[in-house]
């Protein structure tokens, strides 16, 4: 059996915009192993959220996967009918948590109703017809308790506005885990939260992932969070994965010029009084991407070849993959 739960191959996603075609994800390949947390990190607009949405097949209407495949447990998700996606994948095998829980939770339904909806949809047949409501409620209450909400049975009848930001995120996590998914896509789940609450949520997520044995695609712009939660990290820039490695080597010894530059931008007490590294120029517009390596206009090591054709993401002997001509022989 393949230990890889999810394999994305040569994935390209484009949005049609009034300014032309924007290639948000460009020829990206990655895989997620059983039980691993893969961190996807990059600055805004690099395509990390688009990548997460493509796996869930939740791209907005203007977006389209134009090339590639996403194999989940051997099945290509891109070929599944919408009905199958709903019945067998979304919420059941693959769950998602997004940045702002208030956007994901329906304000006019009770928290309990929203959690039991997931159960009712996916686990209906497993329940005995007698006292179904009670079973659903008990299931939801048990899950709320697991995510650390006090008095879960009473809280089921609350509305999202009665919960704080941290508690809403906990409720979202409860919804995500209630069907015991094989893969969790977490898109910036702690960005809107305060540090101490962020720490609580991260700890909760780590515990649940361990207990349920789920794999995670963790998307964030925060390098600190990534370094704490993930086993492996993929760094994205303008639609490409530029570096892909186990967490510790990546942060200790970044190889791609972009990763290197990004890590030198990080402020802290050690950098006090010193200048932080900056990356000259700015992220290119997705409708007007530079030719060759997309990072070349900002790269300090740029060579002629970088301007001509894009580098391939090559796997090195050390197990890390880098897309840069400096490492191509």
């Amino acid at each position, binding site marked *: 059996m393949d230990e890889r739960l999810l394999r994305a191959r040569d994935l390209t996603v484009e949005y049609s915009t009034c300014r032309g075609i924007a290639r948000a994800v460009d020829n990206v390949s990655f895989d997620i192993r059983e039980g691993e947390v893969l961190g996807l990190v990059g600055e805004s607009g690099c395509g990390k959220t688009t990548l997460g949405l493509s796996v869930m097949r939740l791209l907005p209407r203007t977006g389209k996967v134009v090339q590639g495949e996403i194999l989940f447990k051997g099945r290509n998700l891109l070929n599944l009918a919408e009905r199958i996606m709903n019945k067998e994948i979304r919420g059941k095998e693959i769950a998602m948590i997004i940045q702002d829980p208030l956007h994901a939770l329906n304000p006019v339904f009770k928290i309990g109703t929203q959690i039991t909806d997931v159960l009712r949809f996916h686990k209906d047949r497993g329940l005995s017809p007698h006292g179904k409501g009670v079973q659903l409620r008990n299931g939801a209450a048990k899950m709320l308790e697991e995510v650390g909400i006090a008095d879960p049975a009473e809280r089921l009848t609350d509305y999202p506005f009665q919960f704080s930001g941290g508690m809403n995120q906990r409720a979202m996590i409860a919804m995500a885990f209630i069907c015991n998914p094989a893969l969790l896509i977490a898109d910036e789940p702690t960005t809107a939260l305060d540090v101490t609450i962020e720490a609580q949520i991260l*700890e909760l997520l780590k515990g649940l992932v361990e207990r349920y044995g789920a794999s995670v695609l963790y998307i964030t712009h925060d390098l600190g969070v990534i370094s704490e939660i993930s086993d492996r990290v993929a760094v994205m820039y303008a639609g490409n994965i530029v570096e892909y490695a186990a967490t510790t080597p990546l942060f200790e010894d970044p190889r791609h010029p972009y990763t290197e530059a990004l890590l030198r931008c990080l*402020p802290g007490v050690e950098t006090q009084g010193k200048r932080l590294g900056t*990356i000259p120029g700015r992220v290119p517009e997705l409708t007007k991407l530079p030719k060759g390596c997309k990072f070349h206009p900002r790269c300090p090591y740029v060579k002629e070849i970088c301007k001509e054709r894009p580098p391939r993401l090559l796997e090195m002997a050390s197990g890390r993959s880098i897309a840069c001509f400096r490492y191509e022989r």
Partner: protein
Amino acid sequence: MKKKDRAPLVEVQGLKTYFYKGKGILSKVFGKGLRIVHAVDDVSFTIEEGETFGLVGESGCGKTTVGRSILRLVEPTAGKILFEGQNLLELSKREMQKFRRKAQIVIQDPRSSLNPRMAAGEIIAEPLRIHGVKKYEDEIEDEVARLLETVGLSSRDADKYPHAFSGGQARRIGVARALALRPQFIVADEPTSGLDVSITAAILGLMKDLQDEFKLTYLWISHNLHVVKHISGRIAIMYLGKTAEIGRTQDISENPIHPYTQALFSAIPTVNPGQATEKITLKGEVPSPIHPPSGCRFRTRCWKAGEKCSREKPELIDVGGGHYVACHLVSQDGANL
């Protein structure tokens, strides 16, 4: 280093800013059902000339209100704010207007602090016009061009409207506007929040350069500890309207004494793989500032809280070297009891 005998530029003494929240006009007239939000409750600190003083805390701790109270953008309820020895709360409107030339603010969200209908040049020129610093149009135009270049934009950007700028560029316009009157003191309220790391680094570099060039003093408000640690010489940590700890950044990062500071510093996700740090995860959430806990405000989440903590409010005590802590469980020499 500053000489000891010099008076601090800004001195905040016992600052209290309360907001009154009622259901309607009746509650305002009769005080019925009136709820008091204790946004800032007895905060004192000093800011020396030329330094960057960081104010850190989580959302709702009152850090922005402190910044706004110092500039009297919200009216403080009690306390004293001395700027060059003069109490700002006693100034008349006209005197305040004069003072505003010396102290400016850079507001967090450029989208809401830049008028979308005004071109960048007009936005930056506005303070010059209001204060009559420059009278003639050509002078104003030159000054705007100079300011735009100072913050790393081009003089051609003067005709563009805010929507045409990226997040980082919009912050730069906010900075240029604050600099227009050549102030001594700038309240920088989350100037880097919501920006990407590489843009944050660029803005931090700019602010530091400007500080050196114009001899600026900053009150730097942020929830991002990494940023505050990088830029500030001294910091104050706020929790629910009170200061928990004040001291030199180096001292506090190496030796946080207040339990809240310890938890906060251990909670920030840091890039140091392989070096697993002991984390203190706080239970629960910040209580409401309408009904703050009695005694020490942190006691409801503090793992060390004892009986005294709910009875008495802790005062800031000097534990040496300009390091102050407000905790009952800390002795005079800074040791945890």
